[in-house]
């Protein structure tokens, strides 16, 4: 993965470049002359990419980082431009953001809210980052989002799926492009009913923490609305590695569907264990027993190997979208092309959301003509765009959540290669996954006001 561009030295953030740029003075909460935190100089602007680099999500973090690097390249006018060519808003010119060259700093969240905040604070306080992005879990997203609100910088969430991020913990300075638990439920329920019938008894194994709670609530209420019956919901500890003792009671119940509300290593293990117990070949109530995984991820699918065959789940995006479903999802191929050319394999949905978030931020600054977080918030609120791979999308002003189509996928029985693990079953259109801003699953928070810091 070595770069061999002749112009590399120009790209590199070296002492000379920064020296010429003058003092990039990080100001944090101070009453300095600047109107907002970390106002960039005239030559460069610094973004902070805070991703898990150690712990179980490290590979997902690495993939996010690849996408960030690609986005920065494209913003600075290098490479093939990726989705900047298909993006409906065409204000970005490939000369950085508002003429300032984009530089970035990276940090390790360790998938712990404390460590993630420490890392984000160092980006803001020391490196002068004006925007922080990335992350691979909702705990981290909520913690860093709150920090960015306090510090007066913009937070563009990476992979975070819990309702809380744009629900009870939403913040004016934070934005989420990724879909959420409610949308998973709303997208999956009609497809589940169509594929498995409306007379089903579902048994839930739920990760015993916030994301699990909101996702379980979303899926149960959506499936019950189409006629399914919830037999039981059992919470499993985060630190559990062997799920056999949770799977076994499923055999005694009268359930004919098992919903695994797990993510990461938990999902890989619980699914593997469920398949070991023969649940996929099982007959119950005269029907085929089925397993559902509400939130799919490519990396987890790879970890679970053959076990994912035939299992339904939802995704924010998939790299095959444009090839299979056409024009509506334009941008997908452009992104896959430039990512694949650079790294040799297709991008994950985590990579996609991080790339898009970076472009969206840059575009908002360019449209606002100002780096001031409040101007950026105004530019992003209610912003309608297209050509970033998800079809027409809106950043809703009420909660800073993106509304777009949700992809329902099924694990392939016989994958051709290690990147082609899921097939697209259907795409649930935006209208079906949209909810009112005051929906009970999202109640209890308030955006507050945008905080420019300084």
């Amino acid at each position: 993965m070595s770069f061999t561009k002749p112009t590399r030295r120009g790209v590199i953030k070296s002492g000379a470049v920064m020296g010429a740029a003058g003092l990039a003075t990080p100001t944090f909460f101070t009453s300095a002359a600047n109107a907002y935190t970390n106002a960039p100089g005239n030559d460069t602007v610094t973004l902070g990419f805070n991703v898990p680099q150690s712990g179980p999500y490290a590979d997902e973090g690495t993939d996010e980082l690849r996408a960030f690097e690609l986005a920065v390249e494209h913003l600075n006018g290098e490479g093939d431009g990726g989705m900047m060519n298909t993006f409906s808003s065409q204000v970005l010119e490939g000369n950085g953001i508002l003429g300032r060259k984009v530089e970035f700093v990276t940090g390790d969240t360790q998938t712990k809210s404390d460590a993630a905040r420490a890392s984000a604070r160092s980006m803001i306080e020391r490196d002068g980052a004006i925007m922080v992005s990335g992350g691979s879990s909702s705990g981290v997203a909520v913690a860093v989002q709150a920090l960015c609100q306090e510090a007066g910088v913009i937070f563009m969430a990476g992979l975070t799926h819990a309702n809380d991020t744009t629900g009870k913990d939403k913040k004016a300075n934070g934005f989420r492009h990724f879909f959420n638990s409610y949308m998973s439920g709303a997208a999956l329920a009609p497809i589940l009913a169509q594929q498995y019938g409306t007379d089903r008894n579902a048994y839930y194994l739920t990760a015993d923490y916030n994301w699990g709670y909101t996702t379980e609530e979303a899926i149960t209420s959506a499936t019950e609305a189409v006629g399914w019956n919830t037999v039981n919901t059992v919470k499993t500890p985060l630190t559990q590695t062997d799920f056999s003792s949770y799977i076994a009671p499923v055999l005694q119940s009268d359930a004919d569907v098992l919903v695994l509300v797990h993510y990461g290593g938990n999902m890989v293990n619980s699914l593997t264990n469920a398949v070991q117990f023969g649940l996929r070949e099982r007959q119950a109530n005269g029907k085929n027993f089925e397993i559902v995984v509400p939130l799919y991820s490519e990396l987890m699918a790879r970890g679970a190997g053959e076990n994912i065959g035939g299992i339904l789940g939802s995704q924010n995006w998939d790299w095959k979208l444009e090839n299979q479903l056409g024009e509506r999802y334009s941008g997908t191929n452009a992104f896959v092309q430039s990512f694949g050319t650079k790294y040799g394999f297709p991008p994950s949905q985590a990579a996609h959301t991080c790339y898009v978030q970076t472009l969206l931020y840059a575009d908002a600054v360019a449209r606002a003509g100002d780096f001031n977080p409040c101007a950026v918030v105004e530019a992003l609120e209610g912003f309608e765009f297209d050509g970033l791979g998800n079809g027409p999308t809106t950043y809703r002003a009420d909660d800073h959540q993106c509304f777009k189509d949700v992809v329902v996928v099924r694990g392939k029985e016989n994958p051709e290669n290690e990147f082609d693990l899921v097939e697209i079953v259907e795409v649930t259109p935006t209208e079906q996954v949209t909810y009112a801003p005051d929906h009970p699953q999202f109640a209890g928070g308030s955006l507050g006001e945008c905080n420019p810091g300084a």
Partner: protein
Amino acid sequence: MTDQATDGFVPTQSKSKGASAGGALGLGKKDLRLFLLVVAMCAFAPFILNPFPEGSGLAQFNAGYPDLMQRFVIFGIFAIGFNILFGLTGYLSFGHAAFLGVGSYAGIWMMKLLTLNVIPAIIGSIVVAGLFAAIVGFISLRRSGIYFSILTLAFAMMSFALAYSVLTPLTGGETGMQLQYFDPRILDAPLPEGQTPRASLFGLEMAASYELEVGRWLFTFNAGYYIAAIAMLIAFYGSIRLFNSPFGMMLRAVKSNQNRLSYTGISPKPYTLAAFIISGMYAGLAGGLLVAMDTQVGAERMFWTASGEVVLMTILGGAGTLIGPVLGAGFIKYFENIVSKINKSVLEGWFAWMPDWMTDVTVTIIYPFVGKGWHLTLGILFMAVVIFLPGGLVQGGQKLATVLRRDRKSKDAERDAAIQRQAGE
């Protein structure tokens, strides 16, 4: 704490330090020197930790920004407290992070319910952590050695597991606990809707900083850091006094031979329990300060790795020495926050002056050890320190000092302690 039997015990060990002549503040000469050194280091940390000019390639190694400076002193307090238990009594608690976490939760609830002023939060943290330590200590100290360690570990892991899951309404669970503008806060005037609550000390916000530009250098003086540093100095002073007190001697006696102590008719339990509670209160103080500086609590700070970290900090720095735990804490936090941020493009920036192929080779060699490989470097250094410096970093410092001074008499308090520690084991 001093009963008659204690007094009988003191003379045998009073040769070491004690309130000997020539000191002030109730400290011996050497301890006073050490203390003043630490005071100076804390006061000038913004300069010491920012040796490289802003914007230069080496600025990557600057650690003089508020968050990390705060973490240095706060984890210093945590390690000093741990050392009071482990360094003196030899009881290895593997669940100390629980007290830090419980203290943090107490602190944030004080800020949610009472006031944004940090004083009640910190006091609340210390008290609650102390109470929790009293319960855990009372039960765990019924056993010794590894059995004690596993008991403390079990309590900490239960605290973590419950805080992360079923106690979510009380702890925030996965997403952590944060302040909201609509929290009750009965002592404060209500905040306007949507405004972010900020911790303060009688109006001085913890996040307030003064920035000093000197040429290309930039130094940040942060209010929160100095408050935490003062707390650390008080904690450090307390630990020096405690090490030299009759009570401290008792605790060392517990470590060197508990049986002999029992034969002299003294029950070691009250002493060890007192040490355990004091140590837990130090952890609570650290937890309260963490909340005061950064108003959120994540349950992960009670996970066993967090307990392990403070053990490593103490051993790495030099268990049983006064300054060692602080050095160990600084060492680990520095790696976690600085080395983890060195990514490939930073490396390429550093070595851009080389011919292209050499840059590639150099970056390829170094890259696995920095950025996402920071754990690897930390692991190697753990091994290197324990293999080559059995007394921890403190011993390393002394070796260096001896080499520099060629002065065999440079046998100060720290070295005494290091030797004593080895002898004690």
